[in-house]
């Protein structure tokens, strides 16, 4: 486990991720690397000394000093509007990390806290920007050519709101042993030819699109608090072991 510390990060690149979110690539010379699913605390300090700290999941993992975030704007928020609208390449930020030993996936079947069992498949379930740590896990799985069966169920408002759309498509088109099973559920607008009309996730849809109970999947769920609690409750009611379900709630939608 890498010890967390405060680091000075320089913004290397900013780009639009969706109409309401931005991808931030940070260069952190002292970064010790991070596990897939980890997060960091980002601290902003105003000229009068007022500080605000927020947690953001990391979309990248492994060694190296580049750290990728994708930040959704929370209207009326104190921190995210600055990150989404005002931050520029070359700006500096304070970050604390890597953080989180719980909501991480480790290649080779040794999921944090679960018994080593490479054959247990992994089910990722995310909503909105909650997909960010799951992207890190899917990327680590893809880059490591890990044979653990992986599926991602991603609830998102419209096709334009999909985070890391190109990356997810590439993972889903990888050669068979490492291919990501990708199911997008659009809640507001579905593209032409979508598998189903737009609508929110339901217990039946989760049961249809997630690994079945008999396969004892390890499950990671990340999203707004109400989403995570609803989906985790459905999975337990369907017979999945509570210990097999790891959750990360980020608050409001």
């Amino acid at each position, binding site marked *: 486990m890498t010890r967390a510390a405060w680091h000075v990060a320089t913004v290397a690149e900013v780009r639009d991720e969706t109409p309401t979110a931005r991808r931030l690539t940070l260069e952190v010379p002292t970064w010790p690397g991070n596990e897939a699913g980890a997060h960091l605390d980002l601290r902003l300090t105003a000229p009068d000394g007022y500080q605000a700290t927020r*947690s953001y999941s990391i979309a990248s993992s492994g060694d190296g000093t580049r750290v990728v975030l994708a930040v959704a704007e929370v209207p009326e928020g104190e921190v995210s509007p600055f990150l989404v609208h005002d931050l520029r390449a070359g700006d500096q930020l304070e970050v604390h990390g890597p953080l989180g030993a719980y909501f991480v996936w480790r290649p080779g079947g040794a999921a944090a806290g679960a018994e080593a069992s490479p054959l247990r498949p992994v089910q990722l379930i995310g909503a909105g920007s909650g997909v960010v740590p799951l992207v890190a896990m899917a990327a680590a799985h893809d880059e490591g050519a890990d044979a653990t069966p992986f599926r991602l169920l991603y609830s998102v408002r419209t096709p334009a709101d999909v985070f890391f759309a190109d990356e997810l498509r590439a993972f889903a088109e990888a050669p068979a042993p490492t291919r990501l099973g990708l199911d997008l559920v659009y809640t507001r607008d579905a593209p032409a030819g979508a598998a189903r009309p737009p609508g929110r996730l339901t217990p039946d849809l989760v049961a249809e699109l997630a690994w079945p109970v008999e396969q004892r999947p390890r499950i990671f769920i990340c999203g707004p608090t109400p989403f995570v609690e609803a989906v985790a409750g459905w999975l337990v009611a369907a017979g999945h072991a509570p210990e097999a379900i790891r959750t990360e709630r980020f608050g409001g939608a």
Partner: protein
Amino acid sequence: MQHVDGNALAGDLADLFGVDLTAMIASCAHCGARGPVAGLVVFRTAMGSVGRCAHCDAVLVVVVEHEGRARASLGGLRALEAAPVQ
């Protein structure tokens, strides 16, 4: 205010303890419920964070920062156990 969960305590607790506590198993001194620190119900404000038992709502952990120094009150915790074997 919408709550988050104990994953959000990772940074504040790492500042104090030097390790990540979120995968450890906490037991509630009030109701005895056991679960990962990451599963606590957490409310975060500019003043600090409060972590409550997901089962009975008792306050387990309060972390605040004053003049650049962190302080944690852990009076609601009966025990912390190492994370389950990986």
